[in-house]
């Protein structure tokens, strides 16, 4: 058995990478991908604990997370398309009309 801590550490690392991606990258698509990465990191942690405690609960939650992620991506990409149509750019720094 692989020790659960390895999985959790990997999950944490993936999560942090995702967070950094959201905060640092300017391309909107990359930000979305980073968000997906964060969600998948959470999924990994859930599955790891499901295996550890031999419970199916963790895996059921993963189902929910994946569904939510999918719905969220649909909405997010629709927003991105709408913004791109307006601004002709995916650079999120350009969308600063709430400034001030």
């Amino acid at each position, binding site marked *: 058995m692989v020790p659960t801590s390895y999985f959790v550490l990997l999950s944490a690392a993936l999560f942090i990478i995702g*967070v950094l991606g*959201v*905060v*640092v990258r*300017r391309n909107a698509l990359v930000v979305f991908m980073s968000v997906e990465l964060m969600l998948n990191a959470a999924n990994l942690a859930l599955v790891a604990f499901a295996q550890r405690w031999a419970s199916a609960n963790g895996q059921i939650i993963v189902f929910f997370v994946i569904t939510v992620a999918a719905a969220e991506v649909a909405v997010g990409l629709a927003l991105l398309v709408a913004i791109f149509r307006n601004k002709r750019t995916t650079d*999120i720094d350009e969308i*600063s009309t*709430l*400034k*001030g």
Partner: protein
Amino acid sequence: MSDLNWIVALIPAFPLLGFLLNALFIRRERAAGLIASGAVVLSFITTLVAIAVLASLGGDAEGSHATRIDFVLWEWISIGDFRVPFGLLFDQLTAVMALLVTGVGSLIHIYSIGYIHGDERPVRFFAYLNLFITAMLFLIMGDNMLLLFLGWEGVGLCSFLLIGHWFDRRSVPPGIVPGEAAVKAFVANRVGDAGMLLAMFAIFSNFGSLNFYDVDPAGDGRIIYGFLSQAANLGGARIDLGILGSIGVMTAITYLLLIGVTGKSAQIPLFVWLPDAMAGPTPVSALIHAATMVTSGVYLMVRTHTLFDNAPTTQGWILAIGMCTALLAATAAVAQFDIKRVLAYSTVSQLGFMVAAVGMGAYVAAIFHLLTHGVFKALLFLGSGSLIHGMHENQDMRKMGGLRHTMPQTYWTYLVGALALAGIVPLAGFWSKDEILAHAWEANKLAAVVLIAASVLTAFYMGRQMALVFYGKPRDHAAEHAHESGPVMLWPLFILAVGSVLVGFINLPSGLGLPHGVLHLLDEWLHPVFTSPGSVPHEALPFNWAIAIVTTLLAVGSGWLGVWLYKDKVASRIKPGKDDPAHYYLGDIWRGMEIAWGFDWFYDRAIVRPYRAVANFLSSVFDAQGIDGVLVDGSARLFGRLAQWFRLSQTGYVRNYALVFLVGVIGVIGYFVLSR
């Protein structure tokens, strides 16, 4: 006839009605003049009727039971123990004052019809004249200090309004700004009023009442007790002033009243408003600043004489102030070249005589002089008004001369007035002034000498004035073409001239060999007032031959000297715009006399300028920069800066928001993790 007591309420009601009509409804000059004069004439007639009613009231012949009418209109203030009725007192003292006010007032109103003809605002003038008479009547008819004070303030207000009648003129001869003169009069009066108010507080707190005499306003036995009869009962009560020692209650009250008197009756140190008050129309000067308002201070002291009888320290001060004012103002009157300013300083001087008489306890003499002075000073002022009109609004005596030929009626009446003022027998001024001098000789030799000196100067400046105005040759175009005034203005002069001759006979002294029945008429009439409970009895003095002869000779001599100097000796050196020739001989002394020894200059430097400086500082620095700048604009700017600072966080960048979100999440989780 006591059921006719209500008639005293009509006396002030007529002029009040006249004021209301003129202020609210009347637009034309003719109607205004007739209504105003009619109101005061009616008031005069009512006064005569009221005197008849008063005389018919009971009271034994000894005069120990004081008879008076005290007609209460309603209970004005009733707060616990503090009860003040709106009561109109009509006793012997009020009666003679009311006669003067309404009688001379009527003549002045009638005269004004002629004088104010052609003015820009005649209706306003007549309205305020009537309001003044109303206020003055409330002053002398008030049966308590509060109603008296209402009238006191009222006459001060009307004085302000009437002095500033030509408020839109930048300056009137001899260079006074009417608006400023009006403010000066009011402010000087105000200082006195502060003393009056404090005196009223002291009277109430020590005696429990502001009423002069006992009165039962509602007729139900709840009497408001008068304080005058209690004056001797305070014993040696003293007020503790901490480190300043202590002062007797009576002394304190009378000092405070004296402050009020110096303001209203133009004594040292508050007399400075009266010469400038000549900026008002001449009838105003005659009525307010000669016959009535300025005498209210003397009336106040005589009315509350029981207080003064019990405060000998204050009486000394009153005498000192009176005699110094009399002499100082007389010196100032000698050096004026404006005809009305001479009379103004003369009034201040004569008021000094009256105040000095009060200081000696010679109350009847003071009232006697008040009455005679009211008549002949009004005559002189109205005469000067006639001269000013005849000289086409010129008031400078250096431009006049020889007017006895072109204005004969004014000349003869003015001569009568001048002789009366100088105290030449048998005119009115002789009797009243001599009575004061006789009392002075008994009371305080120094005071007598000072007052005699003032009398000598009085005769001198009147002689000087007569010479400059009526004798000699005209010195100006206007004087050559002067015209006499019309009958509306001349008849009051005639009547007042007759009055100046006769009114002296109301208080003839004993010792002249005259039949007993005509002596001391005023004394006897006023007897009940000065023998009311609490009074200290004063004896009427017999005629003092020595004083009378000496002062009359001195007066005749100095009067003749004044005439001779300015008619013959230096007449050729008097020119419009040039200094009086006496300046050459007396130099700085003459300058000092001209400016009344620098009171105005001192007040200007010591009070007016610092006050204006403080006001300017407060308005342009403290208010504009301090309050507006720091507090108002400053707080606005502060919030602006804060808002700008907060606004820095609203970058509009999604990534910044995400970062903040992240930091918050870390913070919360960290808190939960670390607090286990």
